[in-house]
């Protein structure tokens, strides 16, 4: 018998073309939006990279101010923490757009600045207009730390920061120690304060190795890229996770989308990212955000859902609105889980740096990519080691931060009962 050949033609579904059409449509109609996003990301990454690798005196003062202000904020002095910054930003804007400070400076007798010029060199002239408002900002916050609160911890914090800043400036501008070493010392200090001696020693050796390989600037721009990508990912993931925890339908829709984001090979969305933002840091950041965000959403949802139902009910029973329950009960108790999510986001971001390097982001990823492209084993390996050092440093640091979460404190209290 002759069997008829059974052949059914499955129609071709134009998946790829459809996707391209969608990309083109977005590109044509929302170009302005992508421009804005791209510019913001680029400025952030570059600014952060420069701040980390060769901070200016202004940046140091502002950074020190931020540390003191965060301390004030956490101890309940919100106005004291924010008002100086508001004033500073206003002055800074006036200087940036109207040259107000420069104008004021030119009124003053140049004799006042000769000592500074002899100390800092000829550049001092250019540093001053921006530095000028930053110094009173820091001084104001330091004074507020002593006058607004009797909390000895805030005073101690202020004293440490003043000493640190003075040491940093003196060592660099007067003694002439290079910035990379001083920044390394800062990393070591942070590691020591948050995670203890072990990580401090590791970070000292690790960053010295990076410096000796001549990769410090690359490591800092990679770090900047990761910080920006993580910040963006967390800023998106946190509200999404909260929504998903509150609403089962959102959760059900989100799940496959997150799976899709995580499993779709990165190269596939790298292309459209480049067509939106052209090559450079930005598509790298975007690809990193897409790939790294899912665990942030998942663990935020999990953390909030895990909070004891009776505690939420207690909040409701005393008449607290949902927003208060979220802020005062659910988020604090979910914090250690959320931190675990952020840790995952950072780790996944690091695994993306090579791909980011491929599309033109500078940094260690680029180094590795160059190594691959030119078949230069040493270059690629050194870049890889740099990534590993950063990864371990950030992982242990975020892991240690979890110790400070309220739930972890409660657990320790229970254990020590």
């Amino acid at each position, binding site marked *: 018998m002759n069997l008829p050949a059974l052949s059914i033609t499955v129609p071709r579904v134009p998946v790829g073309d459809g996707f391209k059409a969608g990309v083109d449509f977005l590109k044509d109609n929302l170009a302005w939006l992508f421009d804005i996003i791209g510019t913001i990301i680029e400025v952030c990454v570059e600014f952060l990279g420069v701040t980390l690798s060769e901070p200016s005196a202004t940046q140091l003062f502002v950074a020190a101010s931020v540390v003191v202000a965060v301390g004030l904020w956490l101890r309940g002095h919100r106005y004291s923490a924010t008002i100086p910054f508001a004033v500073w930003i206003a002055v800074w804007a006036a200087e940036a757009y109207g040259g107000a400070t420069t104008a004021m400076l030119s009124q003053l007798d140049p004799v006042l600045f000769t000592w500074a010029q002899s100390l800092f060199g000829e550049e001092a002239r250019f540093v001053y207009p921006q530095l000028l408002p930053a110094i009173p900002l820091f001084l104001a916050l330091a004074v507020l730390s002593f006058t607004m609160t009797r909390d000895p911890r805030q005073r101690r914090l202020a004293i440490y920061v003043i000493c640190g800043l003075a040491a940093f400036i003196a060592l660099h501008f007067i003694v002439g120690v290079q910035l990379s070493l001083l920044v390394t010392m800062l990393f070591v200090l942070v590691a020591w304060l948050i995670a203890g001696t072990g990580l401090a020693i590791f970070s000292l050796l690790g960053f010295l190795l990076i410096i000796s390989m001549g990769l410090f600037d690359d490591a800092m721009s990679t770090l900047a890229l990761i910080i920006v990508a993580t910040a963006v990912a967390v800023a998106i993931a946190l509200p999404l996770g909260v929504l998903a925890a509150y609403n089962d339908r959102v959760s059900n829709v989100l799940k496959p989308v997150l799976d899709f984001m995580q499993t779709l090979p990165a190269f596939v969305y790298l292309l459209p990212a480049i067509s939106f933002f052209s090559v450079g840091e930005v598509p790298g950041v975007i690809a990193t955000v897409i790939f790294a965000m899912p665990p942030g959403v998942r663990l935020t949802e999990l953390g909030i859902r895990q909070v004891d139902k009776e505690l939420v009910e*207690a909040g409701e029973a005393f*008449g607290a*609105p949902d927003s208060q329950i979220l802020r005062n009960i659910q988020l604090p108790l979910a914090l250690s889980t959320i931190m675990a999510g952020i840790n995952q986001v950072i780790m996944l971001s690091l695994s993306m740096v090579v791909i980011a390097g491929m599309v033109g982001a500078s940094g260690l990823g680029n180094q590795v990519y160059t190594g691959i492209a030119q078949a230069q084993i040493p270059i690629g390996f050194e870049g890889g080691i740099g990534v590993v050092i950063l990864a371990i440093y950030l992982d242990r640091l975020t892991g240690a931060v979890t110790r400070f979460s309220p739930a972890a404190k409660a657990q320790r209290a*229970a254990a020590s009962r």
Partner: protein
Amino acid sequence: MPPLLVGRRVLRGRTTEEGTVPAVRADKLYKVFGKRANKAVELLGDGRHRDEIKQLDVTAAVIDVNFDVKAGEIFVVMGLSGSGKSTLIRMLNGLLEPTAGTVEIEGTQITGLPPAELRRLRSQKISMVFQHFALFPHRTVLENAAYGLEVRGVPREERLVKAKESLGLVGLDGWEDHLPTQLSGGMQQRVGLARALAADTDIILMDEAFSALDPLIRRDMQSQLLELQATLGKTIVFITHDLNEAMRLGDRICVLRDGRVAQIGTAEEILNDPANDYVAQFVEDVDRTRVLTASSVMEPPIPVIDPSHGPRAALRTMRENQTVSAFVVRRNRQLVGAVREGAIGEAVRNGVKELDGLVDGDIERVHPDTAVADLFHQAAESPYPLAVVDGDGRLVGVIPRVTLLAALAPIGSGDDTGNGAGGGEVAADGEGDSSVKGADEGGATAAASDAPAAEDTDSAAARASDGPPEADTAEEGSER
């Protein structure tokens, strides 16, 4: 005055003055979980059991519940696990929306209230204590206690002061800065209680608040709750599956069975007059001595002797009533003391004309609210029946030892009236009608062991006579 147990009943007089609006009212309340809830309510309304509507694929948790909780009352809802207690209490503060029926809080209907107003009403009128404490582990004990006020927007300093006060009320001075996890279970629940007290609401809901605690600590907490309620006069809706706890705490008890109310009444009513077999079975093994109070077992004080009468008259009164002792009571029913036949007889023979020197003023007096369990000790030490004396020193009843023992017998055993309204009656019917000479001369233990064999002169005497004014007093006592 003898040491009085500051009991829940002391407060009742005051609460009735507070007006007639119930603090909490449940009106034809239903809660049915499931898609076809409304259909289920219809069927349940026609009297079907919740198992009969299984085909609707719904869970009927609360069915046709009606009650009023008076201001200042401890209202206990009791039932086995799954009988709908938690569902019911969550409807009272609007955490759950009833499927049918309404809830009123101090005259305001809360069913159907917009969410914001419901939240305000909760924060101002009703607070809650939870079975597993539900303390916020990331906040100190003090901050936990201040939570209700924080939600209400009270400034920090002020609310911390109030929270500290209420922590003091529950005996947690000095623990303010600890985290809840550092405290033992009993202390944690005290924090839970302090949190509810600091919120300063008139109504407190307590869902199995003591069930997670060890028995001894549970008793402590119960006593503390009674004390606090006596001083603060809160309205408390207390949920429990423990009958003893219900009987100890409740001014009134609502027994839930499979979502329906089986009976609502005072502990004595439920114990002595169960509405159905279910309740009867339930109360079978309750510790009656903890539930019954002096007022519910006491008998009319007969005979009594006026202090102005001479010994001869006193002797005659006792002989007429076939009793060996009698209480001496003024016209305004103030108790003076007691006399014994032996001493009086001798005085008469010696020609003494005045009763004054013969009255034994040092006799055991108990408050009407004292639990029967707490009477045994005093009864054993006294040669006389116990004198039940109210707050103003008036004699309202007497408790002969045999009555005390009879009160221990569960209803139905040796009781032919069965439906007695008060424990006193049950006891009186159970025992003794014969011989005159009682066990009062012998040692206390001897008396106790003799008693079931049925003789106590006083109770016999009590039944033999019917002196009008005193009998009224006693009835008042046992009805309360």
